[in-house]
């Protein structure tokens, strides 16, 4: 029983970070209908930024988010403005290949700059935990979950209450209609990609104290982000939040009851089932 609770809690905490990754991807997909294969690489850049700030300027990873986030927002906006924008009307496979190419460029540039060594970001609290009735809870994960929650709430507020947020949502719902309504769709796309990158990078920053950093770290997160987004419904922010936590828990509990080797199968089968029976995802609306 305590093992179950233990896995449930750590699953939820990790799921919070997954959710951030998924939300970023879902916003990008929602607004542009582009599957971003470089999403994990954006996360990787966030990790390296955090690592760099920590080792060079001794800025705590959780604090450095305030620098990393806007920086990666600009970077994402730049990518959108100069690369993704040019293929918005191209065939989907060209869009995919472009993001794959961009991802390769990012990870290999980082490799040239930082070598391919694993970087370990060790803070005082990297392996500390609090114990509650025999259940141990990782302190850094707890903090990162709290930050994730705050960011997610702020994001909801932004999307629901601000004009820009509403314009983004309108664009996601129907690009053509949004254009007719006078929304600057190009600008919304730039903001969306910026937001997506910033969120991915934040997720990277949040897990770097407990994880490790290397140039190819992104690929496994890209796949995870796909699963989360589809699970939640592509384009749905709430869906991605739920999807992230669901995947965190599924992995954690699947690892205990199916064995670590099969937990990925559990996740992908779950993914396929959702695709088949609810292609719009758990919370998505549109089918196309």
């Amino acid at each position, binding site marked *: 029983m305590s093992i179950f609770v233990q896995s449930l809690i750590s699953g939820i905490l990790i799921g919070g970070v997954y959710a951030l990754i998924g939300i970023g991807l879902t916003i990008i*997909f929602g607004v542009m*209908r582009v*599957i971003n294969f470089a999403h994990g690489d954006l996360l990787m850049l966030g990790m390296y930024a955090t690592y760099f700030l920590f080792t060079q300027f001794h800025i705590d990873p959780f604090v450095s988010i305030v620098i990393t986030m806007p920086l990666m927002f600009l970077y994402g906006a730049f990518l959108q403005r100069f*690369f993704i924008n*040019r*293929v918005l009307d*191209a*065939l*989907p*496979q*060209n869009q*995919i*290949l*472009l993001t*794959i*190419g*961009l*991802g*390769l*460029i990012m990870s*290999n*540039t980082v*490799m*040239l700059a930082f070598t391919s060594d694993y970087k370990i970001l060790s803070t005082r609290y990297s392996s500390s935990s609090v114990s509650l009735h025999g259940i141990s809870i990782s302190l850094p994960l707890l903090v990162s979950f709290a930050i994730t929650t705050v960011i997610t709430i702020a994001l909801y507020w932004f999307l629901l209450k601000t004009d820009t947020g509403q314009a983004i949502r309108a664009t996601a719902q129907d690009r053509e209609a949004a254009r007719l309504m006078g929304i600057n769709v190009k600008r919304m796309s730039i903001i969306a990609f910026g937001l997506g990158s910033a969120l991915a990078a934040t997720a990277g920053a949040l897990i770097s104290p407990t994880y490790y950093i290397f140039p190819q770290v992104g*690929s496994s997160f890209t*796949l995870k982000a*796909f*699963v989360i987004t*589809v699970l939640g419904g*592509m384009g749905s922010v709430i869906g991605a939040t739920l999807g992230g936590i669901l995947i965190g828990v599924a992995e954690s509990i699947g690892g205990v009851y199916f064995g670590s*080797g*099969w937990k*990925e*199968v559990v996740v*992908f*089968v779950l*993914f*396929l089932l959702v*695709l*088949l029976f609810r*292609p719009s995802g758990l919370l998505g609306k549109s089918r*196309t």
Partner: protein
Amino acid sequence: MPSPSFIRRKWITSAGGKRVIPLLLLASGVALLALIPLSVQSTYALHIMILTFVSIIMGSAWNILGGYTGQYSVGHAAYFGVGAYTTMILLQFRHIAPWYGMWAGVGATIVTALIIGSICFRLRGPYFVLASIAVAEIFRVTALNLKDLTNGAEGILVTELPPLKFGDTVITDFTTKVPFFYTGLITALFVIFVTRGVQHSKLGYYFQAIREDQDAAHSLGINPALYKNIALVISAVFTSVAGSLYAVYVGFIDPGTVFSLDVSVQIVTIAIIGGIGTILGPVIGAIVLVTLSEALRSNALTNALIHAGLVNADSRVGVFLKENLSHAHILIYGILVVIVILFMPQGLLGFARRIVTRKRKG
């Protein structure tokens, strides 16, 4: 937008007599290729050619489903892997020679493809792409965990390859690259031939109609599910053969080398860089990509510069190039992919054709 079917129209409209010339060219080209192993001493070159053939097979196979039928699968590693694994399991654990095992691989792949098709073809667009990735990942993780069947992560290392016999005469014992060269060449030609056949038949028209507009196609008497599955099976079968060929040639497979997303992406890249929906696109893509990545990997540029006397090998520039270009080759590869997508969205073939038409007009 220039049409992917541009070339075809030229073929159709050219008068019967004119067709003899390309046919002659083709025949002499094939004959020349077939003579290569006799004249080329460098097995290094043969190795690169064999890899190119495998890539041509993979790219052309994908092209039938992705290029003609418009179903952008990013999960072809599943078929590549099923072919490779079936052949290798039969070879290493059951001592069944690969030229039989390969057919078992094809059989297994057809079953796999029909199952995957029944799942994935219910979805369209980005959902189809993601589902195809997921299915391939399920295969990878399953191969990793079904240790009794696949030997898991340890992979399968071929220790012995039985010679190919005809009666009692040994045709080849596979100690040289020559048999692999011919197998690759013949299969590559065959897949090109099949692509051409598809393009010039009802199938090809139906595939393209589905690619252009599935609903419109449906209203014109085309059963999309049926024809998508036909395209998938053709595509999967050749991908599977490529997998078998690769596995036996390299002599070792593990889930990471044959089932990974990298393989799927590589397959798609070949077709897109070359130009999809054309017979020759994937062929060009394969030739360019294999040679290019080998040239980058082996730092041919630096060597050429040094050889030409432009850069001194021991000078600072020479050392810098030597040390860094070898690290940067995937970076350069990535940059090239981005450039092609941005500036030649129709692939190399489409780009070349556009230049030709522009010149003709202007």
